[in-house]
Each structure stands twice: as structure tokens, then as C-alpha cells.
């Protein structure tokens, strides 16, 4: 791979985007790539809009993905998919977890949650897939494993070998949650994605 792979993972502070980016990055390290990951800490972690950027390839310079160059956008929440859409390549791939978390202006009634947001995203980015990772995670035994379901879907899209991803999950997930997370990952890999 001579080109750098750029993955943008967006969500709401506290949703567990950090574990997802860590697993992807670890796999890329294990495969021998140069890897950079950048994340927001601090105030935004209190329920604000957060993003992790993972880049890997032969040589990576900037830790941030240049706007308009992300290959894949993985969003843990629908509105956050829309928020980061401009960062995607014209033919980039979007994976959206079918979750709605109302931001404050919606909660307080000052603004409306755009109900048609998925349709508008699909119009702009035909390679969009909407998944219900939360439901799958519950079926696997723990709602918190939703982020690992998403790892499964994402890793297939960007072509990471599943056995390497499982290895990374074993390294990064505490032993007592491992079985559920591996099951969640395998369910994710089975998903078919528009690409």
C-alpha cells in the first residue's frame, strides 16, 4: 500500500470511539505500517462532538487527515456523520451506526433534529451503509460492545485481516469482556457494506 489510509471515527463524547480507534491503530502497527492517531481530550469529552483520526501507510506525516481526504468515515451517531462529511473523499465510504443522541439545542427545543439526515447523506455519498450496532451488541450480550461491532464492519471495509484484528482485541479488551467483544467483532465482519 503506497497510499495512506485515512479513517475518521466520529461520535459523541463518552460513546467509546477511543477503543475503536485504538484497535484499528494497533492492527496497523502489527502489520508494520507507520501509524498516527489524533484525538480530542478535555472538555469535548463531556458529551460534545468528538473525532478520532487514524492514518496508516508507509510514511505518515500529519496526524490530522487533510479535509476532503478521509477514505472512510465511521460515525457512532447520525448527526456526527453529517458533521464530518466534508472531511471525506468525494467517493469515500460512510458507515453510520443508527443511533440518535440529541444535542442540547434539540433537547431544549431550539432546533430540530434533522429527521431526513440519512437520506441527505446517502444522496451526497452513495457508498453509505447504516447499521444497528447497538442491537447487534445486545444480541451478543453487552450493549457496550457496539463499538467492536463497528470495528468488525470497518476492518472489513479497509481490508484488515480478521485474525490480526482479533489479536488486537485480545490485547486491548479486559479478559472478562473478551468473549462478548470477539462475538461482536465477528458479527460486524459478516455485515455487507456498500462500497
Amino acid at each position: 500500500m503506497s497510499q495512506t489510509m485515512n479513517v475518521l471515527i466520529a461520535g459523541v463524547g463518552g460513546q467509546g470511539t477511543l477503543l475503536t480507534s485504538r484497535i484499528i491503530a494497533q492492527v496497523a502497527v502489527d502489520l508494520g505500517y507507520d501509524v498516527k492517531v489524533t484525538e480530542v481530550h478535555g472538555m469535548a469529552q463531556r458529551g460534545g462532538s468528538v473525532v478520532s483520526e487514524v492514518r496508516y501507510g508507509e510514511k505518515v506525516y500529519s496526524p490530522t487527515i487533510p479535509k476532503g481526504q478521509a477514505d472512510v468515515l465511521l460515525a457512532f451517531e447520525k448527526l456526527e456523520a453529517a458533521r464530518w462529511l466534508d472531511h471525506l473523499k468525494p467517493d469515500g465510504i460512510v458507515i453510520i451506526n443508527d443511533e440518535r443522541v440529541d444535542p442540547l439545542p434539540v433537547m431544549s427545543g431550539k432546533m430540530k433534529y434533522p429527521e431526513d439526515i440519512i437520506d441527505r447523506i446517502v444522496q451526497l455519498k452513495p457508498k453509505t451503509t447504516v447499521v444497528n450496532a447497538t442491537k447487534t451488541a445486545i444480541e451478543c450480550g453487552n450493549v457496550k460492545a457496539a463499538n467492536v461491532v463497528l470495528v468488525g464492519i470497518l476492518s472489513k471495509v479497509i481490508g484488515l485481516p480478521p485474525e490480526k484484528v482479533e489479536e488486537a482485541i485480545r490485547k486491548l479488551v479486559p479478559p472478562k469482556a473478551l468473549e462478548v467483544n470477539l462475538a461482536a467483532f465477528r458479527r460486524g465482519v459478516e455485515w455487507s457494506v456498500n462500497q
Partner: protein
Amino acid sequence: MKRLMIGNEAISRGAYEAGASVAAAYPGTPSTEIVSNFARYKDVYAEWAPNEKVALEVGIGASLGGARTLVAMKHVGVNVAADPLYTVAYTGVNGGLVIVSADDPGMHSSQNEQDNRGYGIFAKLPVIEPSDSQEAKDFTALAFDISEEFDTPVMLRVTTRLSHSQTLVEEGEAGERVLKEYKKNAPKYVMLPGYARGRHVEVEKRMVKLAEYAETTPLNRIEWGDRSLGIITSGVAYQYVREALPNVSVLKLGLVNPLPKNLIASFAQQVERLVVVEELEPVIERQLKAWGIAVEGKELFTLLGEYSPEMIAQRLAGAEPAPSHGLEIPPRPPLLCPGCPHRGVFYTLRRMRVTVTGDIGCYTLGALSPLEAMDSCVCMGASIGMALGMEKARGQEFASRLVAVIGDSTFVHSGITPLIDIVYNQGTSTIIILDNDTTAMTGHQDHPATGVTIKKQPTKKLDLENLVRAIGIEHVRVVDPLKLDEFEAVVREELDRREPSVIIAKRTCALIDRTPITTTLYVDDEVCNGCRACIRIGCTGIYYKDNEKKAAINPTTCVSCGMCVQVCKFDAIKVVEG
């Protein structure tokens, strides 16, 4: 084997490999993980100091005592530590002393975006800037050598993007912890005018030597490429330049103070066009212009915020900005957590329509919608002095509708001296200390009033109530801010009093509270009249069903703190056991 590390962890690793045995810090984003990581090494001493000035003074003492010492703080922390900083530049060191300033271009988590390379120039300190985690580790280790060789504290300047980006690092061997001999040397360490005059001479000699060193240090390097454009850059901006302009010639500066005049002049001569790419202030550019070197910089690049590869490609390679899809999306500002004790405080203060001088912490979110119950926030500790100032300007009548709010960690950091001022100068304000038993904003660090050290060892706990009484505050109340009626009654009583008082709003931060949750809540649709009073407290545990015009609990986020239950006038929110 290489490992991914955030820049901050790499700094701590670099210090450890260089044999540092003491580290001190006060938390502050983006610097916090430097010393919290260092504290994990078994054979070192690390501490959370009450504030940055104390952290640096502990560091100076440890250096004088012969240990290699690391001190870390966020950019505004250096303001607090500036007094010892300027003078330790005169005394120099015994064991190597490295001071990390973590700046925050873009103000991800800060009240300003000052550029602390300026401190290096004013205080006459060498300033080193790494560009990724590997350099963060290597440069930190080298900084200790420079510190001892040139008898100077060294400032390692990093930014949020470096501190919090993970890049690959090759770990080295753990160094040996060597303690240098301590010898009394008053002319070097007692900064009386007579001795300090002598030291200033040494400082100026040292700067000359450092400027010579700058010409040959491996910290600075030229990467030759196409000579029609030469870029001088440092820090993370170097990575953006390489990403955007892979073929140009680059002079990468790792030592940004003092600058290598000859190296720069020779680079300038060999390129057709010279541009400095540096975030925030034109620190390098100004120096070049003072030397008469023709250079472009801030006429092309902004003084504000973070840079990016695309910005550089647009300014220097004529790239077009990526198209915008123009989707209009509601913003998602940060919010107090469900069950946050601060919510009760600001809900009450808003109801009472009082003036609130505020401070810095999670509770600063009380200034934002929907609570909007804070009038000011300047720097850590400012709330209390500002309340006294407002009272002195506008009189006691005004003060009876004025409160200062300050977090427990912030109070210990810099709230004690202004409280003494209130007692001494006969203010009558009401001060609310938000005691959530942690430094929450920066990721839940312990502090003197939690009774636990950075190494998670129990220690003597600072008793805030007794401290405040000892200062001379006679009216001290301790109350749970999520017991809304009781809390409001206490605030009213203390405001009415023409004497200073302190209310300790005591309840553990919801994110670290380990008390088991034994109840669940639901909204009884029959009773809820859709008034939205519960929605206006801004908790993600409760939302509004537009179609049905009813409130509803979100069971995955609600932590059953009971605040919305008390806010509902119709008793529509029910609590059930289990």
C-alpha cells in the same frame, strides 16, 4: 519494538530513560498525562502539586538537590509559575531541570492561546520543540543533557496536537537514576541583588554559548528538496508542511530559542523564496526580520488556532479548498454529565437571578445554555478576588446578590489567598466551593483535599471546612447541591448575612461516584403536562418526545440522581426501587 504513544507519554518515557527521578505538576489539558505517566514508574518520585508555582519550586529544589527533574504544566500554568521561572533562569541547575509547557493552539480546552515560546525569549531559556512522539522522547532526554551542560533550566514546548497524538516510538533502556552531589553555593542559589547581578552576567554568557550550540545541534536540520521554496518550521507544523509540500526544502528547527543565525542565513541564501510556517505568534519570523533576512510568514498564515496540511497547500501550492456540502447541523456543545452535582448549583443560582463570578473547571459549563448562570471566568482562582472587587465597586447591597463559585481543586490551587483578602478587607461575599472530591475537568486527578496522592497512596487529607474557618470565615455550611430546596435555603441565608460566608457544596463527581444506583426513574405520561421544566436542566438523562409532548427518561444515561424529580411541579417523574 515500536509502540504507539501519545506525545505526553513519550515525554515521560524520555525523562525516565534520561534518569529523571523527580517530577511535579498541576494537571491541565493538554499537559496532564506527562506526569501521571511518569508516576507509574516505581523507582521515581512524582507528585500533583497544589499549583504550578509550587510544582516548579519543588522541581527547583529537587534539581538543587542533585536529581534530574521534570516539571510539566499547561501554557497558562506557566503564568502561575512565572515568578520562580524567571529567577531559576539565573540560578541555573544542579541536576538537569526540564520544564514542559503544553500550549493549546485552537483552545481545545483553554481560556486563551498564548504562545509560550515567548517565555523562553523573555526568561532567557533554551526552548526545544519536538514534532512527533519519537522526538518528544528523544528531545526530552537530550534536554536533560543540555540543562546540565549549559547550567540552565530547559523549556520543552509542545502543543495539544503533539501531546495527544499517538505516533510510533522506539523505547530505549531505562537510564540510571544518578544523584549529583549537593554543595552549598550561596552566590549561585541565593538571589540577593548582589549575587543576582553576578548571575545575570552568567545568563548572558550562556545565551551566547547556546546560540553557538544552536548552529550545530542535531535538534536543527535541513532537508533539501526543490530550492525554489524554502520553509522554516518547527513542532507539529513541520508535519503539516511535509504532508502538503513533499518536495520543498525545509529547515526544521528543534531548538527554537536561541535560533541558529548562520544556519538560517545560509539556508535563506540557497532558496529562492523563504517562508516561515509557525502556529500562533511570529516568534521565528520576527527574529529573522530583525536580522534583515527577507522572509514571508504571517502575511500568508493566521495568528489564530491550529494549522493543517490543507491550509499550507492552499497558501503555498495553490490548492483549492475541499468542497463543503453545506449540511446544516445543530451544534453539539459539551454538557454537564447526568447526575453532575454542579447542575444543582447553577440551576439554583439561575433561579435566584444572582450575579455569579465564576472560575475554571467542569462547572464553567454552567455558563452555557441552558443554565447560563455565570457572569465571568478569567483564570483559576479569579472568582473570589473578583467578587470582592465587584463588592468594593458597587457596594454591599450589590454583594447581597453576588456569589463566587469555585471548584475544590481550583480553590486549593489559588482560591485561598483571595479568601484571606475577603476576610482581611471586610468583604461580605458568599463563596460556594464546589467540592466534588476530584479535579474532574482534566480527567479526575487527586488533589490535597481528596486525601490521595498521584501514586494512589492515602495521605493526610486537607480539611476544607477547617481551613476556611482558620482563615476567619465564621459562617461555613456544608450542603448537598442536589438537595435543591435545602441548597437554595442555605444560599439565601448566607446571601442575607452582612458577613463573608463559605458554602461547601459537597457531592462526589458523578463519573467517579461508586455508590450503587438502586433506583430507576420513569415519567408518568398521565401526569406529565409537557411543560419542559425538567428538560431545561440540560441533562441527557431526560428528553422530550415531540410527537407526544411528554418528557421521557433515557435509561442508558440517567443515573437516578433525582434532580429532575425535584424540578417537576406535577410529580410526574416517578422513582422505583431496583
